[in-house]
C-alpha cells in the first residue's frame, strides 16, 4: 500500500494538504462574497484567519515528514524566491499605476505584512533557542 512507504506517506500528506488549501481558498472566497467589502469586518476577518490557520495546520503533517535537505530547499526558496517575486510584482505595480494607487498600496501592505511576520518568527526562533543560563 502507498501509505506504508515513506514516499507514499509523503504523497498522501501532500495531497491532503493541497486539498485543504484548495478547500480553504473556495470557502474563503464564499465568506468574502457573503458581505459587502468592509462590512462585518470583525466577523469576516477572524473567520478568514481561522480558515488560513486550518489550511496551515493541514500542511503540518507534510512539513514534518520532509527531511532536512527538503526543508532547507523550501525555506531558502521561500525566503529568496518569495521575497524577490513579491518585490518584483510590487515594483511593477508601482511603475505601472503610481505610488498611491490601490494596487500599489495593496502590494505594499502585503510586503509589510510579510516583513512583520518574518521578524516576529525570527524573534520567536531566537527566543526558543536562547541560552537559559545567559
Amino acid at each position: 500500500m502507498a501509505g506504508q512507504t515513506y514516499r507514499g506517506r509523503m504523497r498522501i500528506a501532500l495531497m491532503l494538504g493541497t486539498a485543504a488549501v484548495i478547500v480553504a481558498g473556495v470557502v474563503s472566497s464564499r465568506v468574502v462574497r457573503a458581505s459587502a467589502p468592509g462590512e462585518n469586518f470583525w466577523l469576516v476577518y477572524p473567520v478568514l484567519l481561522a480558515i488560513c490557520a486550518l489550511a496551515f495546520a493541514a500542511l503540518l503533517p507534510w512539513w514534518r515528514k520532509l527531511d532536512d535537505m527538503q526543508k532547507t530547499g523550501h525555506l531558502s526558496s521561500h525566503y529568496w524566491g518569495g521575497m524577490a517575486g513579491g518585490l518584483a510584482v510590487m515594483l511593477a505595480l508601482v511603475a505601472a499605476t503610481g505610488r498611491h494607487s490601490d494596487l500599489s498600496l495593496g502590494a505594499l501592505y502585503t510586503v509589510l505584512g510579510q516583513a512583520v511576520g518574518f521578524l516576529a518568527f525570527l524573534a520567536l526562533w531566537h527566543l526558543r533557542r536562547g541560552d537559559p543560563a545567559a
Partner: protein
Amino acid sequence: MRNRLRELRRDRGLSQAELAEAIEVSRQTIIAMEADKYDPSLPMAYRLAAFFAVPVESLFFNPFVSPVSEAE
C-alpha cells in the same frame, strides 16, 4: 562533505531509492549527499551511520582534519 555513502550503499546492494526509503528521506537527498552537494544534519549523519553500523566519522570525513593529523 566527502563521504563513503555510495560505496556502503553499493556494498549492501541497495539502490538510492531503497536507501532513501529505509532512512525515510527523499531520493534527491541521497543523490545530493553522494554527489557531495549537500552536507547532512548531525541527526541525519548519525542515522545513516547507525543504518550502516559504522562510526559516523568513517562515513563522513571531517573536512577540518587533514589525513596526516588523522593518521597520527
